């Protein structure tokens, strides 16, 4: 196609200046962008106010989206159920029988656990969730993995609190606006979660690989004892995540760890629960950090 008319100013001074100014602003844009980029690389929280404001603006859209996602899942599940009804019925019957047997032994174990705890004088603190929220958005086209929930500091949410769904850990809050909060998902490479193997307490940590899976790395190197199907739960060390929340299932063991998939995929969960940071020490630290301002929070590992 031919060159557009507004790029051929001819002898018009006004048009020439217009094009020149356009170039100047565009180049200034690159320079300003580089400056902003440098600032936000050094201090990631520098522009959190703008992001929170933007999330507040998009909150109604996200809520409508969350509702429709929930409804859509229901419709597809209902249609799918018709096709698999017979087979599913037989499978469920078998599973119920197995579960019944398990439940009896669980009951016994629970009794034993209670007795032992009473013996040691351990009291489980009752953990009350801070808020229940919808997942209303996520950064679907970025390699950074964030999600947005529709509850914020007015509901008592502060950065650092763990976020979980029924099936397991989702992530932790990193920015809280008035009525929305930004959650760093477990699949983000910046999110490191201390975990232990559910069966024997082997300690490891989980780091996001940003492609929907996660890396499980052992703390004690040596012969890799991981097997496919190992379940990892939070260990509670570090004080941020409460112990015992399922995080990941190992799928392919490799030399010094394993690749795994999440036990609670944010794509399947509409409702999430924001909990208190686990230990009183961590809670106090978080509060102190908020008081001292964003500068300290940025240096937090």
């Amino acid at each position, binding site marked *: *196609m031919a060159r557009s*008319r507004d790029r051929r100013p001819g002898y018009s001074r006004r048009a020439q200046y217009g094009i020149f100014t356009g170039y100047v*602003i565009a180049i200034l844009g690159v320079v300003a962008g580089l400056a902003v980029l440098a600032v936000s*690389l050094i201090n990631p929280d520098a522009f959190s106010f703008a992001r929170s404001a933007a999330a507040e603006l998009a909150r109604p859209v996200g809520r409508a989206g969350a509702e429709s996602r929930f409804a859509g899942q229901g419709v597809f599940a209902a249609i799918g159920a018709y096709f698999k009804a017979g087979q599913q019925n037989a499978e469920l019957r078998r599973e119920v029988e197995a579960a019944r047997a398990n439940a009896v032994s669980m009951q016994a174990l629970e009794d034993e656990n209670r007795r032992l705890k009473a013996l040691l004088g351990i009291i489980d603190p009752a953990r009350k969730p801070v808020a229940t929220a919808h997942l209303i958005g996520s950064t679907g086209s970025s390699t950074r993995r964030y999600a947005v929930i529709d509850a914020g500091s007015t509901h008592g949410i502060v950065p650092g609190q763990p976020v979980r769904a029924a099936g397991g850990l989702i992530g932790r809050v990193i920015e809280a606006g008035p009525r929305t909060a930004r959650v760093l998902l477990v*699949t983000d*490479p910046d999110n490191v979660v201390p975990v232990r193997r559910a069966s024997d307490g082997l300690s490891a940590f989980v780091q996001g690989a940003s492609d929907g899976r996660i890396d499980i790395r052992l703390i004690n190197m040596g012969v890799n004892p991981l097997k496919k199907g190992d379940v990892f739960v939070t260990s509670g060390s570090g004080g941020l995540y409460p112990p015992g929340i399922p995080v990941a299932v190992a799928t392919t063991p490799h030399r010094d760890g394993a690749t795994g998939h999440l036990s609670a995929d944010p794509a399947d969960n509409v409702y999430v629960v924001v909990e208190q940071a686990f230990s009183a020490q961590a809670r106090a630290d978080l509060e102190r950090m908020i008081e001292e301002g964003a500068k300290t929070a940025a240096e937090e590992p």
Partner: protein
Amino acid sequence: MIFDRFVASPEELVRKRINRAPLPALAFGLPWITIMLASMASFSPVIASAPVLPPLAYMMLLAWRTMRPGILPLWAGLPLGFFDDLYSGQTFGSGIVLWSATMLAMEVIDERFLWRGFVQDWLAASGLITIYLVLCAILSGLATGYPLPLVIGPQLLLSLALYPAVTSIVALLDRIRLLPLKRL
């Protein structure tokens, strides 16, 4: 035919054409609004645990820029990139830099390759989208301090394949943009 009523082109929706002109707000605002709405696609019902969605807003920008070279000013990358940064989750500022640089790059492409067909446009867009996604991944890798593996492969292929679809959406929007709604 009955179906004609449902598949009427935007032009056929407006009966009177004489003595009418496009609404200025629509004619100049629609590219901005659609690109900004595409930036807000992260608030769609899809909650992704991996980067799978193509960078719709960026593709929309390229499509508008190639279809109507004069309608977005040269500096449009600055405000639109800023808006995209608010929602994209990338390190703040990467949108401003990359979108501004894209507008400049498109200007150079316009200068060098004056006569282009759709295939050449697609090639140019493919090159720009590839550079954009790789730089975005590198920048967020810098921010996390963790070398990101090549997770953008599927997303990149999807974006390149979807670009013609985005251009046809933009073509439809362009016809809506020029609907003669204002009475002269």
